[in-house]
């Protein structure tokens, strides 16, 4: 339930969240139109692979314009709070690192290291709990998903 509420009683100055949203939507539409130029649009009787993407990009641009124009009463960007942004960034970086490692060092090692980072470094839990949860989760999930349900999971050079 976060986000920009339309119709705030007390309005602060500056850019509005919907105005920025509208501009970003228009930018996305323009990028799609730019990349879509590689594909033939065709004719009405024989529409090509570029026809529908062009139609959709134009629609998106039009909606973006309406969102921006009608966004004058939306929440001010200055009022939008981002208290969880730093934590969210750390989570994303850790997920990116885990994805890089997954096929290189295997599922169990990656997952154990991933959980040690979160529980030990970020959440600062007791070392014994960190070790038990990390090792237990990675081994148990590999056993259930990989061994019992026969879903192939990556195994690294050290057979983990």
């Amino acid at each position, binding site marked *: *339930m*976060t*986000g*920009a*509420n339309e119709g705030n009683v007390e309005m602060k100055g500056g850019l509005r*969240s919907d105005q*920025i*949203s509208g501009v970003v939507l228009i930018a996305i539409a323009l990028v*799609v139109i730019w*990349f*879509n130029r590689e*594909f*033939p649009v065709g004719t*009405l*009787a*024989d*529409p*090509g*692979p570029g026809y*529908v*993407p062009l139609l*959709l*990009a134009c629609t*998106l641009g039009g*909606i973006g314009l*309406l*969102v921006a124009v*009608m966004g004058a009463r939306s*929440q001010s960007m200055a009022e*939008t709070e*981002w208290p*969880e942004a730093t*934590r*969210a960034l750390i*989570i*994303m970086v*850790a*997920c*990116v690192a*885990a*994805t890089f490692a*997954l096929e290189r060092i295997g*599922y169990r090692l990656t*997952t154990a290291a*991933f*959980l040690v980072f*979160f*529980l030990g470094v970020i*959440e600062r*839990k007791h070392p014994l*709990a960190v070790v038990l949860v990390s090792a237990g*989760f*990675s081994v148990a*999930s590999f056993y259930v*998903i990989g061994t019992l*349900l026969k*879903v*192939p*999971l*990556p195994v690294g050079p050290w057979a983990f």
Partner: protein
Amino acid sequence: MIETFNSLMMGFSVAFQPQVLMYAFFGCIIGTLVGMMPGLGPLAGISLLLPATFGLNPIIAIVLLAGVYYGAMYGGSTTSILMRIPGEAASVMTCVDGYAMTQQGRAGPALAIAAIGSFVAGTLGVIGLMLMAPTLASFALRFGPPEYTALLLMGLFVLAYMSGGSMLKTLAMAVLGLLLGMIGIDVMSGYTRFSFDIVELGDGVGIVPVAVGLFGISEILLTAGQADPPKVQQPTLRQLVPTKADLKLSVGPIMRGSVLGFLIGIIPGSAHIISSFVSYGIERRLSKHPERFGNGAIEGVAGPESANNAAATGAFVPMLALGIPTGPVTAVMLAAIMVHGILPGPMLIQQQPDLFWGFVASMYVGNVVLLVLNLPMVGLFVNLLRIPYAYLYPCILAFCILGCYSVSNSTMDVWIMLVMGGVGYILRKFGFDLAPVALGLVLGPMLELSLRQSLAMSGGDYMIFLQRPIAVTMLVLGLVLLGLALKPLIFKSKDWRSSVGLDENID
């Protein structure tokens, strides 16, 4: 009627096979646990379990995933009532009066009425599904490309009208989803579009990484770092028994919620969320004492809980009869069927009667399992909520990575999930509803194919949509609803959302 009965009996012979029963039971348990955990809604649960169904037969796969779906609907109500934490968005309205009842020491009757309402709604919903889906499927055999185009466009217009938040933003998200659906090989010309020389993108963007990213990862990004959940009340079995007055007050809301939820469930969009809001608004309006709402009115639990469960069943009607998903959950379930080489569409019921009727019968079984099993075990289930969130969210993240990787054994799906997670986080901060993105992604290729085929049929004449009665009816209906959705924007009047308390955007 006799034919339907015979088919249902055949379905029960499938559903009562020990293996199918076991998986239905297993799905309900997993669903309940998933529904109770904040950050893991039914969609994330189903998406993560999807790879594990590849080795199963298609009937068992769909029975398992459906069990997770309606189990999650039930599980979400438990945390809403006991802790004021909606395990998933459809349970938001249950929090209001359910938690107020808990504070008054009446958590037991609230949980019992939620379970009974869910059971009645689920059962009535299955009867509706059983009667409507075959009729709709035989009607849909008359559909050609123009009718499918009109149907899909009508679905998108209805989505805009019924959206929980801003209509323009909902449409923007649907178009964004449709554009995502354009990535990959164009089936009519063979061109590979928007793949940026990444081989894996040639097959397009999968629904699972998009859904897990948009809903699972973005939820964790928004909630990480929050305080541990508060203390949980555990009502005893005796406390669960509702009084006669509770039952009397709940009968009407349960019946109205069931019918309303089922009808809204058939419509594309966040049906189960909207149905619970609309049901709450209607019950408050119909009540002789509307001031009780918000202060522990049992009707405020009975109506929304019945509505969201009936909507979950209603969503299966277009999925099974037409092969068209109404939301991300049914889209993932369609993917589960397609993995087994089964083509969804109007012919599914005729060609795969075991699958359809076995599925219908298993839903009756699943509803009974949920009622009988979950109420006595509620004390056991809430123990899960004692796990501190600091331990829970890293494990959920690891599951998300594992689930997406397993779909096609490729890290590309994990990258897509992470990108969509980041995009979803920002979109939610800006008040966008994410369900239309996932829906657009699935409908995109269908809409493009039927539109281009229609234009090829008519030699480029758009009038083809106005010359065919079924197509024109659906288009007119969709445009009327779009007009109604635009009215408040143009004339600054209030629309249906404000009358049911749905002013805020639904994430």
